[in-house]
Structures are given as structure tokens and as C-alpha cells.
């Protein structure tokens, strides 16, 4: 698996090692591909945010780069009509369930959604799909941070940080379908959960769902 190979991404020749995951190879070579749920080092990729589509020569449909191992001679395009269309729709879908209002969001200017919008020239407002505006409650029980599910994109970064880095296990995914949410066991407040307020989940959150409280 450690064979040196050459792949081409957007006409740029890249030396890399066979079997690596395409998304990380691209990012390491300063080629941006939108992504939210991908976690380097995770055995089975989530592949749930559906933003990291690329086209690979020889395949008739776009594929998610977070699930795609590289092979010698691979030719990748990160911007094609098909890719742009899927990314745009996925992005707009995520926004339709995301409470906007960037100006008052603690992650303003440091938000992955804003970055994707900028890189791909997408609008940061509700366009084709109306805002679902589901009712959710903010959990600001911890001393140092708060959790606002209305801004959560369900990427799972916080859960990975909680389980694999902090090794606490205070949060996980719960419920199904549209109700899918990040929650503590039995939906108790974070304060009443095993959460140690280590802050790793907050650092991992790419959007404004988990944010540190001011003056801490």
C-alpha cells in the first residue's frame, strides 16, 4: 500500500501514496474541496454531508472524495457542472435547516459554511428551499460553552472529539430522520451529563452550533 503514485487533480500533478483518501490528498496540496463530516484517521468514513463530490475520469457519476482511495494515474476534477450542481443542492439543503444570522453568530468569519459559500460562490441565504425553522432548544447549561441545535449541521465532529480525543462519551447521535440530533444520554442537559467541559467538541465544531461563552 505504500507505493508512490502520481495523480492529477484539476490539471495539477501530485505525487502521493497509493490507497490514501483523495480528500486529504487534495487538501494537503492546497486544493479545496468542501467538506464537513470527514475525519482523517476514521476507519469507515461517515460520508454523510455529501459536499465533497468530485468527478473522476472513467466514472460516470460524481463520487465523494472522502470515500475514494487514490490510485496511480487517477484524473480528478473538483469543479464540473455535475459536481457544482450536487454541491450547490447539498449546501442549500443544509442551509434550509440552519438558522442564519451570521452577524450575531459566534462563529462569524470562522465558519465552514461561510468558507464553502465563499469558495464556491454560493449564497448564504435561503434560496430554492424554504427555511424549515424547526423548533429546537439551546442548551447553555455548561459554564464555558453552549449548544444551539438550530445551527448544527450533523457532521459528527463533536462526537468524534468527545469519544476519541476526550474519551468521555457525553454525546452521541440520537433519533432518526429529520429528528436526528446530537444529544446526551436521555436528552439531559450537558451540565447533568458526564461532560467534563474539556472544550474539544467546541473546537471541533465547524459551524456555530457549539460555541464558547464570552468572557471565559
Amino acid at each position, binding site marked *: 500500500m505504500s507505493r508512490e503514485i502520481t495523480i492529477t487533480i484539476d490539471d495539477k500533478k501530485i505525487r502521493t501514496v497509493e490507497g490514501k483518501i483523495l480528500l486529504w490528498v487534495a487538501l494537503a496540496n492546497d486544493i479545496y474541496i468542501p467538506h464537513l463530516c470527514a475525519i482523517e484517521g476514521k476507519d469507515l468514513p461517515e460520508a454523510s454531508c455529501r459536499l465533497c463530490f468530485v468527478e473522476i475520469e472513467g466514472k460516470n457519476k460524481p463520487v465523494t472524495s472522502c470515500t475514494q482511495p487514490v490510485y496511480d494515474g487517477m484524473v480528478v476534477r473538483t469543479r464540473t457542472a455535475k459536481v457544482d450542481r450536487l454541491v450547490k443542492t*447539498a449546501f442549500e439543503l443544509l442551509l434550509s435547516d440552519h438558522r442564519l444570522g451570521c452577524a450575531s453568530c459566534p462563529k462569524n468569519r470562522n465558519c465552514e459554511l461561510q468558507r464553502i459559500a465563499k469558495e464556491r460562490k454560493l449564497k448564504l441565504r435561503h434560496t*430554492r428551499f424554504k427555511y424549515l425553522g424547526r423548533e429546537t432548544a439551546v442548551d447553555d447549561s455548561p459554564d464555558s460553552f453552549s449548544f444551539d441545535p438550530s445551527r448544527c449541521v450533523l457532521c459528527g465532529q463533536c462526537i468524534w472529539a468527545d469519544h476519541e480525543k476526550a474519551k468521555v462519551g457525553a454525546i452521541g447521535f440520537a433519533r432518526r430522520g429529520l429528528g436526528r440530533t446530537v444529544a446526551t444520554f436521555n436528552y439531559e442537559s450537558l451540565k447533568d451529563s458526564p461532560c467534563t467541559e474539556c472544550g474539544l467538541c467546541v473546537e471541533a465544531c465547524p459551524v456555530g452550533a457549539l460555541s464558547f461563552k464570552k468572557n471565559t
Partner: protein
Amino acid sequence: MTAAALLEHYSKLKEEALKKKEQEQKQPLIMVGTASCGIAAGALEVKEAFLKEIKKHKLQASVQEVGCMGYCYAEPIAIISKPGFPPLCYGNVDEGLVKLLVQSFLIEDDPCYEYALVALEPNDIFPTFSDFPRGVYEHKIIMEHCGFIDPEEIDHYLVHDGYAALAKVLSQKPEEIIEIIKSAKLRGRGGAGFPAGIKWEACRKAAGEEKYVICNADEGDPGAFMDRSILESNPHQVIEGLAICAYAVGASQGYFYIRAEYPLAVKRVQKALQQAREKGFLGKNIMGSGFNLEIEIFQGSGAFVCGESSALVSSMEGKMGLPRHRPPRLTSSGYRGKPTVINNVKTFSYVPAIIRKGADWFKSIGTEDSPGTAVFTLVGKVKNKGLVEVPMGTTLRQLIFDVGEGPPDDKQFKAVQIGGPSGGCLPESALDIPIDFDSLKEAGAIMGSGGLVVLDEDDCMVAIARYFLEFTQQESCGKCTFCRLGTKHILDILTDITRGEGTMESLQILQELAEDVKDGSLCNLGKTAPNPVLTTLKYFKDEYLAHIMEKRCPALMCKEITLYYILPEKCTKLCNVCVGSCPTEAIFTREDGIKVIDQGKCVKCDNCRKTCPPEHDAVVKLSPAILPEEGGEKK
């Protein structure tokens, strides 16, 4: 172990079964179909009635429970075999008919032909299945014994060469078995049609000693009940198929993943597993061959997505039933990370017959690329509802109009919804498509697991698409963006259209979004969820446009843009039936005696239209929901 020794071992068991059967046939035998469908129609009461009558008249006759033969519209069904007569099948049996049959047939030798549906054996007096159009088109392989044997009696299966295929393969090399299945081109009947032999081979070749075989019985499509019926009617056939697969891939542990909503299927498989163990077809050193296999039942909790194999495995492992990206394929990393074969109930059911009769026999049925038969639940607006098994390549027209005899009440056929929520709606013009995996996919539908719903002129295609999207939206696991949010927005747009609130812009968004959800979703639930929308948009766009442009539902089905109206010129003034039938007291009598509906109170329950005497037929539905001008009527 040698083939001869295995055969000898098996022959002894079969001989015992045959002797038992012979004994049974010496006296009249009554078989009552008690699969879930029969029980729902009252089969258990029918069985009790037979027992009571037999006891009352002190007759020598036995009553047996059998499974479902697929003639749902005639349930409860009873078959009476009396020496000297062809076995006769009676439909819509009730207590009265039981009394009559016991008195006239069992006691007095008059078979009451006027109540019989069909005879099961050729004879000079009464027609058999092959004398009916349905019998001409049907070709039963996996349903051959369903409804004619007691599913809780292993000897009944043995009489029909049950477990002969297992005895045969145990003396062969596993690779030879895989070669037979590959050469038979058996394709997975769960929906996608992946070649079973290739799947088995991949699992066989995968590294590791520990392997698993799982039967996917998580049937969840609305309107589909093939797998349930087969498990309830002939569970041993599925067990034998699964055991052969386990031997071929090198697994010593198998599972049935049955949804908990199928309690009778669970019970009958449980009992069948027990009997198979007692006879030595399961357990350690099966038939002295040295092959070990245990099979257990895992009960699913009814999440539709758990029919997707990676979600199924995840739920068996005690995790949330969420699908994952593939590869790695389950044949290399499945249950507990070990190589796993997951096949549908029907796929396993074909295996014993293929082993006994050979790959060439199987390939002689059906089409070149989709050999064998297809099992469908033929439901909806069709006269002969039921479970049918026809050779692949039969056209939809033959299935719906010859086997099913078309829509009842002289209604006009409109569409056929095939493949459940993942499938599509095909119009009249597509009816000559042969039923096989590839042709259906090309038309925009899928074979699916075999649900087939016939729709007529009274069905609104937008509402039908909405119905299926409501199902998939609720059943989405929520993991990936396209399925979680995409299906929600598709549903919202469809709901708007059925309410007359759709716009041309939203129709455009609907089309784009449906295409993107199909291309962008993580698993097959999401990838196929837009099919009902895409096919109705393709074949029935005019109905969408009528809803949007004219706020008119052509089928008069969408309540929000339909109203009820009593035609003054038809109302008799002399009856009050509609007034009495209205649950909200919305109908009142005008000064001139004519009944009028208060639109503000009407809940569109359809009671008045149903109860208005047919000679008047004065209540009509109107769409768009605009009351006609009533200038002239107020005389």
C-alpha cells in the same frame, strides 16, 4: 462423506415422511389457509367451525393449517381432499359454508361444486388452475407448495423432496455449488438484482474463517407481503436455501433478520428451525457430513432502512440502523466485520430447486439476463388481488389484465406503481415492457422486492407520489443531507401542489431536487426515494400542471382543491339520506326542498356521495373547488 451415504440417510427420512402422508390421505383431509392474510379474513374461525362440525357428526376427518396459496381475494380458503374426489378448493369460506360442506360433501358425497373455486388435480368434472388465465401465466417455483403443505410440519416439506438439495450438496465441493448458482444466473430478489453466485463467491474467497449468512426478511414496502407469505407458508424452503449458501461460502452461523411486525412468520420459522434441528438438517455434523450450522432469528424493530444490508448489519450489531458507504462490501466486511452474505427470502427460496433440477432448468424459465420467476403482490385497483408468481419476461399488461383481470367496476386503468416506495409509476404506454430487472430499471421503475399497485382513473398521480414520499421521508434514517432534507423538501413541494398552492417555479425545483437526491444520496433508500416523483413527472406531467395552473385535481382525489356539490336538477327532494349520513351536519334542506352542502362545515368525507341512492346520483365532486352559478335553479 460419500454421496451414497448421504442419499441413504436422506432417503430414510423421506420414506418416514411419505408413510406418514399416506396415513393422512386415508381419510378426508381439510386444509385451511392460515397465513396472516387468511387469519385476517377469519381462517381461524373457519378452522374451528370445521373441527366443531366434524366432532358433532363424529366423522373421521382431519383439519390442517396450511400457508397462503396467493389468492388473497378469496380468503378464507379451504381445500378438501376426500378419497374418490379430486382435491377441491373453496373460497370465501364462512361458518355457513363449513356446515354445508361437512353435511353435503363429507357426509353425503356432494362436493358442492357451486361453491368450489378450483380443483387441484386434473379431472373430468371441475376446472383446475391451468384452465384459468392466471393459471396459464403463472409458473410456480418458490410458491409451488405454499398453501398446500403445513408450514409447521417438516415431513410435509420432505414429501416434496425437501432437504434433498442440502443432502446433495454436502457431498460436493462448495466451489461446485457456487458454480451452479453462478451458471443459473440467479439474481438477488431483494430489489437490485445482484447476481447471487458472484456474491457467494466473493464471500467464499474473502479472508478469514468466521463467516456469516443472513436472510433478509425485513420486508417493509407498503403493500408488499411476498416474503412474509413465503416464510409463513413454507419456511423450510428458505432454511434449506440458507443452509446451502452457508455450506457454499463456509459459514457455520446463519441468521434470519425478520421484522418483529411479522409475529407469525417469526413463530413459524422458529418452529421450522426446531424441527430441522431435530431431524439433523441443522446443528452439528449435519447428516453425518461433518458440516455444522446453527441458525438464529434476529427480530428487527421495523425501520424500513434496515432492509438496506449495511444498516441491517449495523442494527444486528446493536448499533443504530444506519447505512454506511460501500465499499468495503459486506462480503468482505459484514456482520461483526466478518465476510457476510445477505440475501432476500425469495433468493434463498430458489436455491433448493436450482440444486435439485440444475442450472439449465432454471435458465429455461424467464429471460436470458433475468432467469426464473418474479413474485409480485398484485394489489390496488385490480380484480384478482393476490400473490402471483410469473416467469420473468411476462409483460405488465399480461400480469395486470390477464392474471389480475384489470381494474374492477369498469374503471379506466391509469398507472401501475411497481417496486414500492423505491419504484416508479408506469403508464398504459409502458405496459408492454417485459418484467425483468433491466427493462424495468430502464423505464424508471425498479423490480424492487415485488410490490405492484394498480391505479385507476380515481387515483391522482401527484397524491400517489406524495404518499410514497411521505413514507420515505418518515423512514429516512437522517444520516445524509440529501435524504434527510431533500425528501422533506420534495414532500413539502408535493404537499403544496396537492393543495393547489404549487407554482411553476416549485415544479422546476421539484424536478431538479429529485434528480439530485437520486444522484447524491448515500444509500439506496435515498437514491431511489425520488423515483415515484421522477416517473410521475415524466409520464403524468399534465396532472401536475392541472393542479398548478387550474387548481384542478383531474382524479378528484386531492381534497383541498375539490368540493362536494348536490346537483339541484338531480336531487329528489323526497329523501334525507345525505342529511343523515353527514357527520358534521353540513347538509341542510333549502326552502324549495333541495339539499345543499354548507361548504364551511363539509369535511369531504364522501359519505353523502356514497349514500345518495343510485337512481338519483345527485352528489358530485368538483375540481377546481368552485361552486357553479345557480341562477336558474331557484324556482
